[in-house]
Every structure is written in C-alpha cells, then in structure tokens.
C-alpha cells in the first residue's frame, strides 16, 4: 500500500511539473499590450493620436482692416458719395 501511495505522489508530481512548465511557456508568449482605439484609455486620447494633427479653424483670421492704405485723396471719390438720393437697388 505504501508503494502505491508513493507512485501516485510521484505521478502527480510529474503531472504538476508538466503543467507548471506549460503555463510558464504560455506565459512567455508575447502578448499584445493594448488594442488601439482609445475608447478605454484613461486619458481619453486615441492611442495613436500623438502625431495626428487635427483640422482646426484658422485661429486668427487675417483681418483686412489691419491693412493700411496709401492711396492719395481722390476728389472723384468725394463726388461719388455726394448724391444721397441715389438709387440703392440691385
């Protein structure tokens, strides 16, 4: 009886050892870190967003009113504004 118990213990040990080796081998397989997509990222940023440049509106529209006019006074122009009775329809 003692002999059978010793054999069972030996066999079980061998099985356990094999399992440990297999688990260790499986653990050595390189696992993917994270899936891209970003929805689950804590920072709320897409994983690959660093180099992405998002379209933005022009922050400062070039204001034409900043331009300076160097045009000389134009007497003709004064005439143009003189007639306040002019038609204003297209």
């Amino acid at each position, binding site marked *: 009886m003692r002999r059978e118990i010793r054999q069972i213990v030996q066999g079980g040990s061998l099985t356990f050892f094999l399992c440990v080796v297999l688990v260790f081998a499986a653990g050595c397989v390189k696992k993917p870190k994270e899936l891209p997509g970003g929805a689950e990222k804590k920072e709320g940023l897409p994983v690959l967003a660093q180099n992405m440049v998002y379209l933005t509106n022009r922050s400062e529209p070039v204001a*034409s009113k900043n331009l300076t006019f160097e045009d000389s006074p134009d007497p003709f122009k004064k005439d143009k504004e003189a007639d306040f009775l*002019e038609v204003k329809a297209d």
Partner: protein
Amino acid sequence: MKTQQTKTEQKWVRKLKGSVLSSLHNERGVALLSVYIASLIIGVVASATFGVSFSEMKHIEREVSRLQGYAAAEAGVQNAMAQISVNAYTGFININPIDVSDFQDVSGNSVGDYSVTINYPDEADWVIVQATANVQTETRSLEARIFLESNFSKYLVYADSTSFASGSDAQYGDPDYTDAYGDGEPDYPELVPPNEDDRASLYFTGDWVLSGSNVTLYGDAHAEGEIQATGSGDINGDTYSADYDENSSGAVTDSGVSGSVQVGDGFDDDEDRNGDFVVDSSDYPDYHDLTDAGEEDSHATETLVEIDHSFYATNNDTPDFVGASAQNRFLEFQKNGAQTEIVEYSNNQYSTQIGSQTIPSSAIVYVKGDIYVKGEIEGRVTVVSSDDIFLVDDVSYSNGQKYADADHSTAFLAKDKLFFLNNNLETSGILYAENSSNSSVCFDANYNTNLAYDPNSKNDLHLYGNRVINGSTNLSLYDDRIYGYDKNLRYYRPPGIPVVPDLRIVREVDPPAGS
C-alpha cells in the same frame, strides 16, 4: 530423475501462476500506469491548448498591427487635411507629399511609418489624398476625397447687408430649357433643375427686399432675415429664411416670405408638415428654415471667409503694379497663346499704350491703387486692387467665351468698390467689393467711361458669374439686368479664392505598388 525434473517444473509454474494471480489480485502497478496515462492526456490537452492560444496570439498581434496601420493611415489623412487647411483661405492647395518615417503613439513608442500623396486634378473642387501606413508586416492604404467649397464661388449673390434691395426687372439666374425627352417642351416645370446643387443660389445675411416689380429668380434664395416683396416677383425655386417658423404640431406659422411673390420649383418633393396626409399649400411647400445647423430640410447659415489682401500682395505676379505709392492702372487684357497679356495705357481713354506684360496661365494681378479693366482673359487670373476696380468695358474669356472652364476663370476683388462704367456691359467671373470705405453702395453704376456722374444713361447689364457684396448696389440704374449664374466657377476657381476643405469620403484601397 525425471520425477525430480517434473517437480521442479511444476514448482516454477506454480510460482509464476502465484505471482501473476497475486499481482492481479493485489493490483500492484495499476496506479502508476493510470497516472502516466492521465499525465499523457493532460499533456496532450495542454499542448493543444497552448497551440491554439499561440495561434490566437499571433492573430491578435496581426490584427493589432492592422488596426494600428489603419489608425496610422487615418493620421496621414488628418495630416494632409491640416496641410491643406493652412493655406485654404488663400485658395492655394499645398500638394507636397508627406512622409513620416517614425510614427509614434502617445507613449512615444514607435508604431510604424506612413506616407501621403495629394492630387489636385485640374485644380478644381476636389483634392484626392492617399495615405499608406506600414506597421510591422502590415500595410494599409486609405483614400480620402476632400471637397473644396467657397462661398465666393458657391452663390450667384452673397450679400452681407442688413437689407438688400432688388430693383425692377432684375433677373437672377437663367431659365433652364433642358429638353432631354425631345418633346419640344422643357423638362423642368419652373425652368430650374431638381438638384439644388445645379441651381443658382442667393444668400443674404439680412433681409432680401424685392423692392421693384417683376424681380425673377431661377434658383433658391437664402435670407438670415425675411424675404419681403414690397414690389413683386417670382422665385422659381425654394426659399430658406431664418424667420421661418412652425408650431409644435408642425404647422407653418411664418413662411419667412411676405408680399406679392410666387415661390416654388414645380417639383413634388415636399413633405406633409401639418400631418393631414395631404401635401398642399397649407404645408408651405418649397418654403424652408435657415438654421445654424441646417438640420432636416433646412439649410445652414454661412459666414463669408475673408480674403487676405496681404497674401495677394505677397503672391503678386505683376510686381510692376505695386509701387511705393498707390497709382491708377488702366489695363486691357488680351490673349497671348495660353496666357494673358496685360497692356497698360496712360489713362482711361485707352489711347496711349505705356507698357505690357504677359502673366502666367494661373496668375494673381495685384495693384496698389485703382484698376481700370476690360478685355479677354486667357487662363485663370485673379485681379486684386488695394482700392477700387472700374469695369470700363466688357470682360470675358478669350474668343468671347462667357463661362468658366478648366482653362478659363477670373475674379475681380476690390478692397473698396466696383464701378460699372460702360452703359452696356457684359462681364464674366467673380466680382467682389469689400467696401472698406463703408459706402452706401459698393457696386456703383453712377458713372460713365469718362468718369462723369451719369446715372441715367445705363442700358443693359449682363453678368456671367458670381458676386460677393459687402453692402448694397445701385445696379438697377441699368434698365435691363441679367445676373447669370456660372456654376463652373464652383469647380474652376481662379487662384487665391478662399476655400473651406471638407472631408467627404474615406475608403480603403489597395496600397500602391512598392509600398
């Protein structure tokens, strides 16, 4: 002797039998065998599991690489959009290729690389971007199509004014007599095509007032205020007014249009707004809302993209016209091969030639001062003045062509006002007056070719193009006015017209060969 041998054999047989029988009876060795068999089974199962797991790992790694490749290609499209947007407000599209050899994630880890090619066919209204990314052994390629829209070329009239008046007999757009069936009758009931993108369109940031009689529009009208007919008119198309309103049940309480004006495009494409299962006049067919978002059947409000005068000065193809001080320039455009030759005269009588120069086929003419113009344009030419532009006589494309195409388009952009001098005038292209002096009218017909005040001698005005008006006009001084629409200007804009890029289509395509 024989008996002795037989006894010995019998003894061995008995011993052997006893041993086997004893083993069978006491089951010695079965446990070890069972453990070995169980171990073998477990080992096989574990090996199979390991194999499946390994295979799935490989698949997942590949899938991750593919996803990263897609994301990297998307980043390439975004990068191209950003590159295009930088100068889009000037109308110039930067088509330089993009090459990112080390594309990194947010943690700074190298992911792969991507490259982008940008095509701008015919310098028209579409830009085609192809972004190809390499991640590990995976290569993915995306094609994006970016639509370039400009409200400088989109609308027959874009008027920024609290109230824009249209005088008697003004005609906006041209009737469309398409007869595809060949039955001798026009196909379109109100002579406008069913697709609104093919129609002329007006946009007013305030009210549009049909102050005269017999004002006619072949197309759609947009007003951020109301469309009022103090005179009379026909709108052969749809109206979009911000004053339009409905009650909670969908019944129209304010059409946004008032007065004696007929509205309708003649097509049965309208909805049953009040829910009575009949589309009739109570549903106000062809009347729509103008909203910020443009949801449902409404249209969205639009803001004009400002032009950048300093850009034109910097990219000027005629440096002779920009001196230290402003100067009037009297110019006539002539065809010279595939380009335009500008002949300069000494004064508005165009009698003494003082110089000439041939400009590139796609050119910006920037003048510091006033410009007086007439003649024929060859190529794509944008004429910009730091002050006023005077239309002395007809301006068309070469050989009398009226409408733009891939090789012909033009724009006249005045910092202040546009003057219509000749008593009979035909002009093609985009006309823009920024009205920097804040004059009461910025499209002015009060003066003749001798620059004399002569408002009552105007006869016929026929425009083939679009107008952007910052204020009002007095072009009703012309007895007959046809403001024709040139939809080709939406596609073949002259250089320097501000555009807004809009990403419309993204699809995966085969990577280019060798990538």
